[in-house]
């Protein structure tokens, strides 16, 4: 039984001839307690997908499709209904801890604000809970730091504060938009561990957007690979890493630098991802793909079970899978 069911989610910007499709008929499920990784290059639509779930697109963005949450469709939900879900049942954390906190309010106010909006806690109980949350995300001396301003925290600490705010209402789903990209590697590891610990403690599910395959391998149960606004492959992390079934996934994995004994040339996928206004016909990846044939230039491959249970949108999934993992 899945917690969140996304069907044919589409996000567009602008209107008429200049209309761009940033997310194109994306479908996926998130099960209770599961961590789903959304992976892709910059501009592949992974962050837009995440924001479209809560209809948090910038001005000019439009969402269609279905986002089924607790028996209702968030795409058609009213403002009030949506606000009751945002922050209460589904929380979100952002990439830039330096700008995601309000610079002129002490963190106490910002944590208590979410508690006020979404819980019945009042007065002392609320303050106590705010302190508890800072403790929970591993900020030492929480009682004193509550009254400090965001600029007095380091990047990693700010991301912890952000997580504390997001978790204040004990949401059932956490959307994390590249939560560790702006942090250095050791802090990155701590924050990911923290998210996983809290996930287990609070029994939530997590959708993690990242471009870092290492992060996916470390933290996620399942992964969905995005390219040019579509999901091109999805499956359990172990399966996908063991035997990618889409030429793009295979290329991504080959591009991860390895600390092997001998120095070798770093592999990269030729070319660049397409601009949103000139996505090639057929499979969007075909100009960069070494498996490409005529059918790839003509028909958009459907996302369907191609190798075992695994969903792939590649006409040559079998050939790609036969090569095995480049990792």
């Amino acid at each position, binding site marked *: 039984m899945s917690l969140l069911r996304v069907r044919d989610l589409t996000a567009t910007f602008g209107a008429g001839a200049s209309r761009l499709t940033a997310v194109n008929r994306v479908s996926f499920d998130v099960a209770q307690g599961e961590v789903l990784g959304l992976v892709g290059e910059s501009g592949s639509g992974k962050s837009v997908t995440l924001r479209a779930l809560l209809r948090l697109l910038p*001005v000019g963005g439009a969402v269609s499709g279905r986002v089924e949450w607790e028996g209702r469709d968030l795409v058609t939900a009213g403002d009030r209904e*949506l*606000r009751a*879900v*945002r922050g209460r049942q589904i929380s979100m954390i*952002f990439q830039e801890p330096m700008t*995601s*906190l*309000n*610079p002129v309010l002490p963190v106490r106010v910002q944590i208590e604000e979410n508690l006020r909006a979404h819980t019945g806690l009042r007065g002392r109980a609320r303050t106590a809970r705010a302190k508890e949350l800072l403790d929970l995300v591993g900020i030492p001396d929480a009682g004193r730091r509550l009254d400090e301003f965001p600029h007095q925290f380091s990047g990693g600490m700010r991301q912890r504060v952000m997580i504390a705010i997001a978790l204040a209402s004990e949401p059932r789903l956490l959307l994390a938009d590249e939560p560790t990209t702006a942090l250095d590697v050791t802090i990155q590891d701590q924050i990911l561990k923290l998210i996983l610990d809290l996930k287990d403690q609070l029994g939530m599910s997590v959708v993690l957007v990242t471009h870092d395959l290492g992060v996916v391998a470390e933290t996620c149960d399942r992964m969905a690979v995005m390219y040019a606004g579509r999901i091109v492959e999805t499956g359990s992390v172990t399966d996908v890493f063991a035997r990618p079934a889409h030429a793009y996934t295979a290329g991504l994995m080959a591009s991860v630098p390895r600390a092997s004994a001998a120095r070798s040339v770093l592999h990269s996928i030729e070319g660049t991802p397409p601009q949103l206004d000139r996505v090639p016909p057929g499979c969007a990846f075909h100009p960069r793909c070494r498996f490409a044939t005529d059918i790839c230039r003509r028909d958009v491959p459907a996302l369907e079970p191609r190798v075992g249970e695994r969903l792939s949108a590649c006409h040559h999934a079998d050939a790609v899978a036969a090569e095995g993992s480049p990792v």
Partner: protein
Amino acid sequence: MSESAQPEAADAARRSVRLPRPGHLPLPFIGGALILGLSVFVAAFPGLFAPYDPLAFDYNAVLQGPSAAHPFGTDNFGRDVLSRVIHAYTIDMQIAIFATIFPFVFGTAVGALVGYAGGIAETIFGRVVDAVITFPFLVLVIAIVSVLGPGLGNMYIAVGLVGWVFYARITAAEVRVQKRLDYADAGRAMGYTHARIIFRHLLPNAITPAIVYWMTDMALAILLGSSLGYLGLGAQPPAAEWGVQIAEAKNFMSTAWWMGVFPGLAIVVTGLGFSLLGDGLAELLRTRR
């Protein structure tokens, strides 16, 4: 740390964060605050400072130059100029505040809403602002006052009708920048209402330029009040107001310079106070970021 010491420590931390110690305050801020603090005190208790009744005629001492008995001299009715300048503080400080408080509050609120809403609301608002700004400010205010009739109350109304657009424009521009930052998105992701996001989160981050402009505007309001007083559209004689005093002095400029110079100096000093405070605040609010 023991239980009892904790709130104290938290309080101390909060204090040290919120306000820099006096030694760290920018110099213009201190200067401006001193001048205006004194001005407000004089405005509140003019009787403590004025040696004479500002309205009492004394035909035995008409048009006398500065002396020990009358440091700023006397006017054509024998009224003590120093006493009139001091009592004028009450009216002119009132003008500074009453003529600007409504534009400040209403203008920043409208600006925040419009800047946040964007789209058509912002386009329409932009045209309204253009229409108002096309008229020279003083001419527009004079036109409105002549319709409503002279007097301070109508002057506040006239300034209020026109003045808010400047605050609204400044605030809208700033909110437009702030609403694109992640913390505004984060607020929406938390399910906060638009009103809460605008007034609790965006406005405190966007209001600094409007506050600084407010200080300058108060100085301008005093000048405007004096100008209208001079033209006979603001405070009415025999009330002691700097503009009224200067208007009365213009007929005696060559024989009794002190009638106009001292009220003029009072305007300059008060205006300087507001400008300094504005500069100081700008510096203070900038460093706090």
